[in-house]
């Protein structure tokens, strides 16, 4: 295939190309890894599965935050609002309305999106640092509001009984198919749900970036003024991204609290657990890249596994690492690697090529 940058004599036309040879290999590799991960419950013990659930939901949260901050320039420190909201909706729907927990996870996403609309109305009036602070304040309002609900345990929180956590969709089939007991079957289903959410979120971010809207995100991040002047409705694009991120974050929150089976306002709306760690993951891994959050989550998991017993020292190390990365590799470890070796596993660049007509 004759391919060149400049048209020579003769008929031909311009075309867009996105894939790279590496990206095809990466796509195949990703499929294999996802298939292996899906089969993990066949050989892994419960400890590993529980760790993996944590890794997967942190990855999904990191992809959401990266979509907001890294690709759209909406630096929110209030995503815990939607984690907690999703968790509480799950509890309300299962405890009070008696809905199947897996169905409740999906509903939690839809309801979070609805809550995101009025929230956006408030925080989108703020810019830059004020936007960040605004999102945090809104999350605190959410926390204080949910502490008022008596049916959901007020300030001390409440638990899901085994009658609910064991009632998840298809648990009997998993039990007989894999020959495991109820608690193990519950973990396996949570693991698959977490895997689906993490892979689904990553894929969603990728598809958004490949769409017309995705192209607009980069433009908005680089210059809002110029973006508007080429026909982009900045406010609408940003709102869409915010609502999508809220919906997915709400679903992740619902899953997290289905797994934990116990919720309280302080834990569910924790800025440290659901936003600060997520920011560390994205910054260390590589903000504004899809691969970065994956790398960051692995690093975060390893650090937490080997260093968490040192308590405060672990948090200090995490902070120092994030600062070092910000200073010496502003695009994160993945940014550094991809620049040094020209790697792009999930290609979003559109390249212009000239193709001779056949």
């Amino acid at each position, binding site marked *: 295939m004759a391919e060149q*940058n400049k048209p020579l004599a003769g008929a031909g036309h311009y075309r*867009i190309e996105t894939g790279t040879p590496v990206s095809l290999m990466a796509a195949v590799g990703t499929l294999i890894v996802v298939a292996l991960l899906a089969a993990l419950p066949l050989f892994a013990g419960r400890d590993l599965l529980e760790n993996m659930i944590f890794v997967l939901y942190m990855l999904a949260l990191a992809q959401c935050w990266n979509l907001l901050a890294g690709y759209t320039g909406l630096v929110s420190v209030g995503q815990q609002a939607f984690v907690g909201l999703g968790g509480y909706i799950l509890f309300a729907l299962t405890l009070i309305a008696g809905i199947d927990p897996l169905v409740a996870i999906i509903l939690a996403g839809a309801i979070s999106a609805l809550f995101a609309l009025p929230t956006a109305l408030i925080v989108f009036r703020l810019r830059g640092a004020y936007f960040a602070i605004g999102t945090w304040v809104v999350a605190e309002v959410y926390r204080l509001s949910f502490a008022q609900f008596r049916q959901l345990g007020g300030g001390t929180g409440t638990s899901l009984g085994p009658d609910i956590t064991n009632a998840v969709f298809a648990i009997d089939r998993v039990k007989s198919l894999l020959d495991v007991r109820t608690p193990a079957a519950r973990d396996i289903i949570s693991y698959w749900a977490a895997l689906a959410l993490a892979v689904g979120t990553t894929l969603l971010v990728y598809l958004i970036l490949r769409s017309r809207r995705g*192209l607009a995100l980069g433009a908005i991040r680089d210059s809002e*003024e*110029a973006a*508007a002047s*080429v026909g982009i409705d900045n406010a609408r694009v940003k709102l869409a991204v915010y609502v999508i991120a809220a919906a997915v974050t709400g679903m992740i929150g619902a899953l997290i609290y289905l797994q934990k089976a116990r919720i309280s306002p302080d834990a569910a709306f924790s800025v440290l657990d659901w936003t600060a760690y997520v920011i560390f993951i994205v910054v260390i891994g590589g903000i504004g890249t899809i691969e970065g959050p994956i790398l960051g989550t692995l690093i975060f998991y390893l650090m937490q596994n080997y260093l968490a017993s040192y308590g405060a020292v672990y948090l200090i190390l995490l902070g120092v690492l994030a600062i070092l990365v910000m200073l010496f590799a502003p695009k994160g470890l993945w940014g550094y690697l991809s620049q040094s070796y020209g790697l792009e596993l999930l290609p979003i660049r559109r*390249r*212009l090529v000239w193709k001779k007509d056949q």
Partner: protein
Amino acid sequence: MPLLEIHGLRKYFGSVVAADDIELAVESGEALGIIGPNGAGKTTLFNLIAGRLFPDAGTIRLDGRDITSARPHERCIAGIARSYQIPQPFETLTVFENLLVAAVHGRHKTEAGAAQLCGQVLERLGLLRRANALAGSLTLLERKRLELARALATSPRLLLLDEIAGGLTESECTELVGTIKELHASGVTIVWIEHIVHALTAAVGRLIVLNFGRKIAEGKPAAVMGSPDVRQIYIGIEA
């Protein structure tokens, strides 16, 4: 009916009057030049036309339709495109993606459908070689060309050019004038702000002069440049 019609336009910045009761009509297919000293309100006029700023008084019509309160992206879709005096490329996108995003959002094209147009615009402006380079890596000259290229990618009816010849060498300037004449000949209506008067007068059929936000002269370039008022302001600006 004129393509662009401005009536009684005023804009204040505190005590500074940046647009003072401006009346202006630009016919479809015309090429109009705007000159005036630094701070005269030239860029402000573009900002008002493109919707970056909203006026304190007055109306702006495009094709007879009142767009005074339309938002910037709506004006782009209505057919107004601009280049910025200080280039504002999308730095983390490639040169081609800068055009692509403009074509796709400014003209509601599909990405595949926009590729051909973007390729041709890049060819025309000598940027094809840099198509897949990051816009952030361009030189100043290339950035100025990208400003024009990105505006053209929206297939505008009215093109607002803000000092795109500044800093060019003589031969680059001649080339640019050629490109603008071609665009004009292909039917695009052009309003061009420029300090380099001889470049401007080579391409436009009518000239207006702004000073302290006021339109102080208007007419054929030679007549306008010959008037005593304008000569007085222009001593020292055009060597």
